[in-house]
């Protein structure tokens, strides 16, 4: 139990550091910006109580906001992400069908499940994020292209991190 808390705490800090000191400066053609910090919410264990899940999502969102000077923007998007996560998991995961305690990682749930999971959550998060940020209909084309390209970039990074750190442990 303690190990899980410490691991998540470290992940929280490391992801925020990566986001605000590295990825904040990465932009492809001024259109595509990855937001990798949402990996933290995705990787919280299945048995996290809802209240804690939403609280942590809000916290990581507002922490990123503090660095981006946009109070509330990332928090709103990340809370939506947490809600979509709850819905998605309640639809796709039956805990009885696993013999070991499952984790929402690529190693534990398989590539296909993780790809759907990451794609869906990222799309929701980025859609709200970019539209809230721009906050007008007149630039919808630019916003949508930013939304799609950034989602691609983020999903790519999520999969890479999944392949790097959470591969199936072979005995």
């Amino acid at each position, binding site marked *: 139990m303690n190990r899980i808390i410490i691991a998540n705490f470290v992940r929280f800090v490391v992801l925020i550091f990566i986001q605000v000191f590295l990825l904040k400066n990465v932009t492809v053609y001024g259109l595509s910006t990855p937001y990798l910090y949402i990996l933290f919410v995705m990787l919280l264990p299945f048995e996290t109580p*809802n209240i804690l899940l*939403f*609280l942590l999502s809000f916290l990581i969102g507002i922490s990123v906001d503090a660095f981006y000077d*946009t109070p*509330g923007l990332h928090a*709103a998007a990340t*809370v*939506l992400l*947490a*809600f979509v996560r709850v819905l998605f998991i309640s639809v796709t995961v039956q805990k009885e069908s696993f013999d070991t305690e499952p984790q929402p990682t690529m190693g534990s749930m398989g590539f296909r499940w993780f790809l759907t999971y990451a794609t869906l959550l990222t799309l929701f998060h980025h859609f709200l994020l970019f539209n809230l940020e721009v906050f007008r209909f007149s630039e919808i084309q630019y916003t949508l292209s930013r939304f799609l390209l950034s989602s691609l970039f983020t999903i790519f990074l999520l999969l890479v991190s999944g392949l790097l750190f959470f591969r199936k442990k072979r005995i």
Partner: protein
Amino acid sequence: MRNLLIFITKYSAFFLFLIFEVISLVIFINYNGFQKASFINTSNEVVGNLYNRVNDFYDYLSLKQINDNLAQENAKLRSQLRASYYIDSVSKHSVNDTVYKQQYSYIDARVINNSTNKRLNYLTLNKGAKEGIAKGMGVICATGVVGVVVKTSDHFATVRSLLHKDSRISAMLASSREGGTFTWNDDLNPFMGILSEVSNNAQPHLGDWVVTSQYSLFPMGIHLGRVSNLHAKAGGFFLNMEVRMAVDFSKLEYVYVVDNKLAQEQIGLEAQQKQEKDE
């Protein structure tokens, strides 16, 4: 009660989502200047546009009356044309006129929202800052004074009408030029106003015109109404009289916004004077 609790715990994710999302959005809208401004602006634009649509429809219903009014106004303006005066002086040479400088110009606008039955009544006009309307300008119509612009957005302006407890307009009796203050009367009657603080020396008659004075932000001599009762209430050192309003506020359609081109200069000078006095 117990069922309610069960319901809430069963859908806890949804309620938690609502709570945290609302917190985030409140933070977001309160602390981000652009979104705050545009959120309020967007809602204003939406409301304004709705009023505009509804008003377009109403216009059809009152076309006949508007036609009559316009014809009347046309007739009045025509009678003011230079051509309708007999000019008895013969001009010998033309002079490039630098004596007269235009002080007032008029922007025509349409009333798209109006109320007369509240304590604080406002109008909305279909023109705004883009057409040159600014806060503090006077608004008149063919028959008299309407109010003062209090707020503008890009395409709309709100006007505090005379039917507002805070409206005070510097007025005078047209016949004797005795000055006073024109306000709405106390019992919220949309046809009656009060001319107060007129000096006791004045000898007003029933039916005298009450017009704007030279101290107001309107051009001098715009109609406010006619005196209908000489002794409205005992006012000590001053005369108070009841005035029947010249404008029927429930039927306002087209109005003119008065742009006093020298107002800025006057206000600036007076502010300077006040500052010097304070020091």
